Structures are given as structure tokens and as C-alpha cells.
């Protein structure tokens, strides 16, 4: 700070000299002040230069800044050359010029030799042509690194607050697993579809997406599978589950078996009904489509993450007249499910459905924390737009990305 102060004092001393240049009208009037200071919130590589606008600025006149590692020069290294009508400081109403430069770039060799942090000296020159030159005084600065980027303060607060929310609600959900979640209407549709399959005496087909157990969509899909399996066991229908991933296959077998046990029908569980259809995308499509056509499945469920195959699967199912319900968070495939299926759970509804059914504290708590974050964003958006309409930019200041 004291350095800025020093330059300021210095500039007052030098002011009389600069004003002598201004005697003639067509002479350039250099800016009345010139400051160099360490750029805040940076890694210590850049310095900021700032000076008030001169009265004689024009599109012909240029500002040139020379730098040196010594106070007495020589000032031969040009570090900046701008049109005098450009680079105004934001919000200064064209009264100040401001820019950040990285002097290390220009003194690569020299600064390597100096121990510690070098000091840089800058000379500001205003010129319109080689003859018409006005010199402002010299400013110096030692750049240094900072330990916190204050422009990112709001980001940091969001990080801390959201972490606290997530952790707290997961703990809360552990104690209180009946955390309220709105009913997902797609879940009723599942029961209807199962009921119809029972009436028709045709099997139910559950189709896994292509992702492995590492994906949240698959975990959610397996949770829903458990619930479907219980119902199927109660209704005494056949459930076929097609897989593409060997690990998902073994997890699904486990889940279906447990569900049958829970429904009191362990005898009805047939391991071969939870099977590996294929290991690549298109053979998977061909195999699953084949099952739909041959067995005339009454209800098809597509759950998990799907890629381009979604279209062919859903189309084949629709052509066989099955009731189809899809749930996926792969947004690029959703349009095809919506137009070919009877009911589609969109994006996050898949996770919500799985949390709703499994009552897993991890899922419930996290979902609640995310809801609160969304609530804050919604409020901010509505309030911010309303305030902006009447000309108050307070909310946009709070959420400014630094």
C-alpha cells in the first residue's frame, strides 16, 4: 500500500513538470497521476496499472508503458501500447484507465537471476507522433502472490453452505427416514402396467440401460427393479430382466431373488429369467427386440442410462402393443421415450423414484439438500429479475461470478 502512496506523493511533485508541457494547446497533456500496484487475488505474476484519463485523449494519441528492473532505467522495454481512447476502468465512467500486465514475460532472463521477488518500475508515455510526446512519472511495484481470491468469496460460501446442507440432511434422514417426498406419478403407472400384464397372462420385460453399476442411473434402476419384482411375485406373473453388464446382471439376480423372498414366493424365482442378453450395443438391441416380438411381452420397462439404442427398443415395444414405461436421465434419448412410451420418468425423477421406493437416507437427504439449493436459486432468480426491473442490481451482485 505504501508504494501506491509513495507514487501518489511523487506524482504530486512531478505535476508542475507535466503541466509545463500543457502550455501549448496542441501539446499533449499527460495524465495527472500514474499508479502501479500488485494485482489483488492473483498468483503474484501480474501487476495492475491505473491512471486518470488525460484531457487530450484522442484516437490518434497512444499510451505507451515502458518497464525496467531499475529505478533509474533505462526504460527501453515496451510492455504496453494502447489507443488512448481504450481500456477504461470498469465502472469509472471513462475517468480512469486500468489494465493488468505480466511483467515477468518481458524480463524472463533477468528476473530468474534476481533473488526473491523483483520490483518493477514503469514509465507512462503519451504520444501522438514521434515529436509529440508527453511523459508521466515513474511508478514502481513488487508483485506478490495472494492466499485467497476474494472475487470467489460467494462461490466459497456456496461450497461451504451446500456441503453443510448435504451432510446435515443425510444425517437427518438417517434418524427420520420418512422425510417427505412428493409422489412420483410414474410409479402408479408401473402398478397399472403390472396389473394389465397379469390379466393378459403375458410376461413383463425389464430392460437395463447400458451403464455399469458405477452409474447413479443404474443404481436407481436396480432400486426400482426390486420394487417391481415384489409386485410381480405377488401377482404371480413372469418377470424377465435383460442385462448388458455382467456385474449389473449379478446384482439384479440378487435383488430379484430377495424380492421374491420378501413377497413370500421364493419358489417362483427362476434364475434364467434374469439374463445377459448381449455384450455390445446393437446385438443387445437385436436380442431384446427378439424377446419382445417372440414372447409378446405385455409390459416393458426401460430403466437406467440409454444411448442411441433407445429408439429401436421403444419402437419395437410399441409395435408389439405392450404398455411401456421408461425412466432415464439421458436427456438426449428422452424425446424418443416420450413419444413411444405410455409413461416416462424424466431425468431426476428417476433418482427421486428410487429414493421414494428405497427410503435410503443417503438418497433422501441428498435429494432434500438439492431441493433447498434449487429453492434458493428459484427465489434468487425471481427476486433478482424483479429488482433488476426496477433498477436494483443487488441480487446480481451477490451471485456475480468472480
Amino acid at each position, binding site marked *: 500500500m505504501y508504494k501506491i502512496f509513495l507514487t501518489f506523493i511523487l506524482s504530486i511533485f512531478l505535476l508542475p513538470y507535466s503541466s509545463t508541457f500543457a502550455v501549448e494547446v496542441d501539446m499533449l497533456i499527460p495524465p495527472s497521476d500514474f499508479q502501479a500496484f500488485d494485482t489483488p487475488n492473483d498468483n503474484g505474476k501480474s501487476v495492475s496499472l491505473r491512471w486518470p484519463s488525460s484531457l487530450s485523449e484522442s484516437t490518434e494519441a497512444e499510451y505507451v508503458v515502458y518497464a525496467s528492473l531499475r529505478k533509474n532505467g533505462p526504460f527501453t522495454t515496451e510492455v504496453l501500447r494502447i489507443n488512448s481512447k481504450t481500456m477504461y476502468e470498469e465502472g469509472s465512467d471513462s475517468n480512469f484507465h486500468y489494465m493488468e500486465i505480466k511483467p515477468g514475460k518481458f524480463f524472463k532472463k533477468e528476473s530468474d537471476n534476481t533473488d526473491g521477488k523483483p520490483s518493477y518500475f514503469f514509465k507512462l508515455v503519451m504520444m501522438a507522433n514521434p515529436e509529440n510526446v508527453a511523459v508521466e512519472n515513474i511508478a514502481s511495484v513488487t508483485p506478490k502472490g495472494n492466499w485467497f481470491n476474494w472475487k470467489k468469496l460467494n462461490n466459497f460460501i456456496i461450497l461451504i453452505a451446500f456441503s453443510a446442507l448435504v451432510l446435515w440432511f443425510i444425517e437427518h434422514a438417517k434418524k427420520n427416514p420418512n422425510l417427505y417426498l412428493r409422489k412420483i406419478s410414474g410409479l402408479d403407472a408401473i402398478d397399472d402396467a403390472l396389473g394389465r400384464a397379469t390379466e393378459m397372462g403375458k410376461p413383463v420385460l425389464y430392460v437395463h440401460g447400458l451403464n455399469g453399476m458405477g452409474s447413479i442411473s443404474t443404481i436407481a434402476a436396480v432400486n426400482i427393479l426390486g420394487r417391481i419384482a415384489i409386485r410381480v411375485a405377488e401377482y404371480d406373473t413372469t418377470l424377465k430382466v435383460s442385462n448388458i453388464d455382467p456385474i449389473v446382471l449379478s446384482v439384479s439376480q440378487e435383488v430379484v431373488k430377495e424380492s421374491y423372498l420378501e413377497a413370500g414366493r421364493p419358489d417362483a424365482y427362476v434364475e434364467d429369467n434374469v439374463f445377459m442378453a448381449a455384450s455390445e450395443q446393437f446385438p443387445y438391441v437385436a436380442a431384446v427386440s427378439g424377446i419382445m416380438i417372440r414372447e409378446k411381452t405385455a409390459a416393458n420397462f426401460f430403466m437406467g442410462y440409454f444411448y442411441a439404442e433407445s429408439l429401436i427398443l421403444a419402437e419395437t415395444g410399441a409395435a408389439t402393443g405392450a404398455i411401456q414405461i421408461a425412466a432415464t436421465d439421458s436427456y438426449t434419448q428422452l424425446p424418443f421415450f416420450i413419444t413411444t412410451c405410455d409413461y416416462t420418468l424424466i*431425468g431426476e425423477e428417476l433418482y*427421486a423414484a428410487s429414493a421414494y421406493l428405497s427410503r435410503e437416507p443417503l438418497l433422501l437427504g441428498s435429494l432434500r439438500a438439492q431441493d433447498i439449493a434449487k429453492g434458493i436459486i428459484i427465489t434468487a432468480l425471481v427476486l433478482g429479475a*424483479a429488482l433488476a426491473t426496477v433498477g436494483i442490481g443487488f441480487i446480481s451482485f451477490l451471485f456475480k461470478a468472480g
Partner: protein
Amino acid sequence: MDKKTDVSILTWILVAFCIVNIFFLVTGKLGFDAKGLGIITAVALTLAMYSFLYKDNPVFKIAENLFVGVAMGYWIIITWFNILKPDVYEQLIVPFFKDTGNAPQYIVIIPTILGIFMLLRFSDKLSWLSRWSFAFVVGLGAGITIPNFIHAFILKQLTFDSLIAGSLPDSINNFLILLGVVSVLIYFFFSLEHKGVIGGVSRIGVWFLMIAFGASFGFTVMARMSLLIGRIQFLIRDWLGIIQ
């Protein structure tokens, strides 16, 4: 009967394909060199892929499995030449045996060991070591994701535009954008029942979602058709030479 027709269709297509290519080779339209034979191979694979349209068949399955294998082989070799060779082999191992002017970069040992640990995932006894590597990479990814996502996808995406803009259409658009973002967020809000005002707004959210999905739908149709156009261009330009 079905199988018989299929086999005869396949035979006829094969015969036609051979005749056309032999004709091209004899007339010199395709050279009997790496390039000419390359085009014939590429055409054969392209047609084999399209045979799926008739039905799932052995020719398609062979082509697909071959493709999967070649792609994996390519990935392995490219990883060697682009990552493992320059970043591990040349920095850590070569300097031991040859004077390259650089000392061996011992620091590379750490990621190399973690990389090798990762492969122990398939061992019965030592698979737990792979968890260390996964923990490193996943933890690193999670750590850098949080602040960067808050910045780029939340703070930067929140716009607080005045609802009274320069012109009437702009004002309406600003309002619609606000309404769209808010209503979609409310649709994905699970802690309140969708009744009353919330229900109404979430209903609007559904409409916005449907328009957006319609746009995606249109663009996806466009994408798939473009791929087909490209392949047909390849067939009739590079192979048959009908168009330039």
C-alpha cells in the same frame, strides 16, 4: 424357407459385390494397391453394417465384432504412443540407459505405481490396492468439480435480466426465459406436492421441457440423417465414382 431365401440373397449380394470390384480393379478405376483395396474393405464393412437393416445376421455380427476388436487395438496402441511412451517410458526409463540430457524424472514413479495398482482390480488378492488409485482419481475429480461447476454452471448461468428491455419482443423473451428456467426447476422439485400454484408452474415447466425435447428430437433426426448422407456420399463418390 426363410433361411433359404436369406442365404440366396446373401450369395447374390456377395457375387454382385465381387463382380463390381473386379470390374473396378481391372479397368483401373480402383488401383490394386493399399488405397484401392482399402476402399474395397471399407465398402465391404459399410455394407455389412447396413445388412442389419434386413435383419440381425452373421455378416453384421462379424463386422461388428471385428470393429470392436480393431477399435480396442487402436486405443491400446494410441495410448502407448501418446501417453505411456512420452510420459512414463521416456521420462523415467530411457534416461537410465541412454544419455538424453535429462535426469530420470523420479516423480513419475508415483502416478506409474498408482496406474499399475489400478490394474490390480482384476487380481483376487490385491484388488484392494486398486482402490487407492481410484480414490486418488475420483477424489481429485470430485474436488475440482465442485468449485468449477458452481462458477461455470450455476453462477454464470444465473441471469437477472430486467423484464422491461429495449423492445417489447425482448421483454417478452426475457420473461419467458425466466419463467422457463424457474418452472423447469420447480418441476424437478420433490419436497413439495405439485398442487395449487406449484402444480400450475410445474405444469408450465412440463411444456417448456416438451418444447426443448422437441428441439432435441429434431436435431437428433438431423444428426442421424447426416451420418447416412455421409456414408452414401462415400459409397457413390469414393467407391462407385458416380458423383464428384
